[in-house]
């Protein structure tokens, strides 16, 4: 059978082109890889190579013809042993219908509310509780969570700058090197991009790395691997390449370390499908969520807060205590206004609630804990009760966690709102160094009080 040569698409967007020049004549022998002709597109002139061996039997589109549609037959190649008689009736072959990619409208990607993918597919299991508690700092809780999980699963290991011999830049990994040895507590060079990628590879290879960033500010050098390699590969592989890895470290402002060391990345990571993002407040949150994060088969961003490391809380002493990812927690019940917060801002929200109570306003404080997936249900239920909401976060206002929550309340609790959702956020500037300016930047309890009163019209 003679083989038709079709007008090729030479770029992702080409639909037609000009047949600029034939480089072979009828009757010429051709072998695979020989240049047959030159095609001019709007971008460039390119050669078309033969894919088959044989003789150029007939040229169907002459040199100089413009506007030749992709997939139009332009020539016929005769295979070994065929002669021109095989060409009969082939000259005027109609152009086959173009088999281009399906039009965008054959798929309807936006048929679900934008918030749907962030909601947990199945309701997460209940938080395991235990009657007995011990008093621990967040620092100790994080350490214990890692140690317990490393005992439980031999494939869990910790890597990062100063995690071993130095015992952790913030002493979170205190004692782990002695307990587990250098094979499992790995001091890395200062090479965030490299060790984040290495961690992802190790996770693909069947291990469960905990990658500590000295702070999340430095993870910007690693964000390509976090997003492009860790969060997308499962999808790009059709479900084959799970990446069980935890990226953890302090996030947000510490104290007086200025712009490059004081940024909240919550909304950056919460934006991205393929990740889970959590941010604990109490020591119990820290321990229970970190254990869940380490056991989770997905990449988890674990945003800690340096200022909270030394704070003490009650922590269940049950070694199987975990906090499920995707569950918010009501820290304080109240019927007048809902205040959502995460990490250190929960503390500010609780202080604000105290002041509000003195003025006769009962605030319900929701500690979000998970930022992807969001526990939309818990927040909606609270708003159904209070009809008012204030979102608090340290990060910048634009495209922030509060922006997302406000949108979700419009989608899911619109009829219950008696006032627009208010946002209390970090000021829209890089973090200043001066003590007084820094104070003005981070949300304070009095900002929250003012916002709560405003939505209560008081």
């Amino acid at each position, binding site marked *: 059978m003679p083989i038709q040569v079709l007008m090729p698409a030479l770029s992702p967007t080409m639909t037609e082109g000009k047949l600029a020049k034939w480089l072979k004549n009828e009757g010429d022998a051709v*072998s695979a890889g020989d240049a047959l002709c030159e095609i001019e597109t709007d971008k460039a002139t390119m050669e078309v190579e033969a894919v088959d061996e044989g003789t150029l039997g007939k040229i169907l589109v002459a040199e100089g013809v413009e506007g030749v549609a*992709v997939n139009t037959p332009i020539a016929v190649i005769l295979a070994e042993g065929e002669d021109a008689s095989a060409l009969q009736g082939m000259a005027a072959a109609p152009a086959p219908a173009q088999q281009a*990619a399906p039009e965008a409208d054959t798929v309807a*990607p936006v048929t679900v509310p934008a918030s749907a993918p962030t909601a947990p597919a199945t309701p997460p299991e209940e938080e395991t509780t235990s009657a007995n508690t011990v008093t621990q700092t967040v620092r100790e809780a994080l350490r214990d969570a890692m140690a317990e999980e490393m005992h439980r699963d031999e494939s869990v290991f910790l890597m990062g700058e100063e995690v071993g011999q130095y015992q952790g830049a913030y002493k979170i990994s205190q004692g782990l090197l002695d307990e587990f040895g250098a094979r499992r507590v790995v001091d890395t060079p200062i090479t965030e991009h490299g060790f984040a990628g290495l961690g992802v590879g190790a996770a*693909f290879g069947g291990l469960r790395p905990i990658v500590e960033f000295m702070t999340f500010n430095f993870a910007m050098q690693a964000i390509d691997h976090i997003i492009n*390699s860790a969060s997308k590969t499962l999808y790009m592989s059709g479900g084959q390449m799970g990446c069980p890895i935890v990226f953890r470290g302090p996030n947000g402002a510490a104290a007086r370390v200025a712009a490059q060391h004081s940024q909240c990345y919550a909304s950056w990571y919460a934006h991205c499908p393929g990740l889970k993002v959590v941010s604990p407040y109490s020591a119990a949150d820290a321990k229970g969520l970190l254990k869940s994060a380490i056991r989770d088969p997905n990449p988890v961003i674990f945003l800690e807060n340096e200022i909270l490391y030394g704070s003490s809380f009650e922590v269940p002493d049950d070694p199987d205590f975990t906090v499920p990812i995707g569950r918010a927690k009501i820290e304080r019940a109240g019927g007048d206004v809902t205040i959502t917060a995460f990490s250190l801002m929960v503390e500010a929200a609780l202080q604000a609630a105290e002041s509000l109570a003195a003025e006769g306003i009962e605030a319900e404080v929701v500690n979000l804990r998970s930022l992807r997936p969001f526990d939309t249900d818990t927040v909606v239920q609270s708003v159904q009760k209070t009809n008012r909401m204030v979102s608090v976060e340290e990060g910048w206002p634009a495209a922030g966690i509060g922006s997302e929550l406000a949108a979700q309340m419009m989608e899911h609790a619109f009829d219950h709102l008696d006032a627009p959702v208010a946002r209390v956020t970090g000021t829209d500037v890089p973090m200043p160094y001066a003590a007084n300016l820094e104070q003005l930047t981070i949300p304070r309890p009095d900002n929250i009080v003012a916002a709560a009163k405003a939505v209560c019209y008081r």
Partner: protein
Amino acid sequence: MATPARRKPKAAAAKAAPRRKKAAAKAKPKPQVSRDELLGFYREMLLIRRFEEKAGQLYGMGLIGGFCHLYIGQEAVVVGMQAAAREQDTMVTSYRDHGHMLVSGMDPKGVMAELTGRRGGYSKGKGGSMHMFSREAGFFGGHGIVAAQVPIGTGLAFAHKYRQDGGICVTYLGDGAINQGQVSEAFNMASLWQLPAIYVIENNKYGMGTSVERASATTDLHRRGDAFDIPGMQVDGMDVLAVKAAAEVATAHCRAGKGPYVLEMKTYRYRGHSMSDPAKYRTKEEVSKVRQESDPIDYARDLIFENKMADEASLKETDREVKALVTEAAEFAQQSPEPEPEELYTDVLVEA
């Protein structure tokens, strides 16, 4: 009518030997190669070539979209490297990945169907040409970010060492990728921790339109590991036997627990960087010279004839078999349906 043209007259094929000038002088005496092994190399290289030509054709018909990077000309690199691989080893590369998948033992049908974005593809149509994987085959991608595979491969090597499974990770990267900072970061850690990692730099002379000379302050890319005390070797990447010999040296080094190894393969891509590259940065003469004088498949073919390992007729039979495989793959890739719309939402997260 006329007999199909050959790039070389048949008679000349048998004595077309004196082409590996520089590399021949450098390379060690040709390793012993059995008839079966050499015929196997020939077949695998041919499979890659025919597969890629077919992919180019399907792209031209609008059946493959987006970016599609062909491996034509570089076949000897991955085929020679794979000759030294063992079951437990892993492999990772960039977006120019079709050849690597085929030698990993992945099914040409599944690879081609991924190129056409169909359900039967290795990633169910969600990855495309640049993003394909097979845990089963030890192939870890298929990565679209230049050099991202280098720390990832280093992490796979870390996992081999951690688990003491005796495996090595072979990471392929381009001459363009070598200049990424993360390559130096990965080299440092691989050497520091003595990881079983082989880095194969496929120096095909260009990163898109930029020649090595215009991109690299030092062009001896096999020496890029020097600063980290990683041994390196330059290899004629158009000679499958030279590649195999180098692979044996590097794998022996890694398996002995001596840490990473860098191999620079001097090779060449015949086609443009991707399908839409008019390749104006090099002359036609440059391309046709390589094709005529150093084609890796012609070279293997000549060796086979020289050593009377097979005759013309039996290689023709191999050609036919390979062609049939590729045709079958192309048909499958067109018949396999597009993914169900519901697949849009699957594989974002693993169910916890």
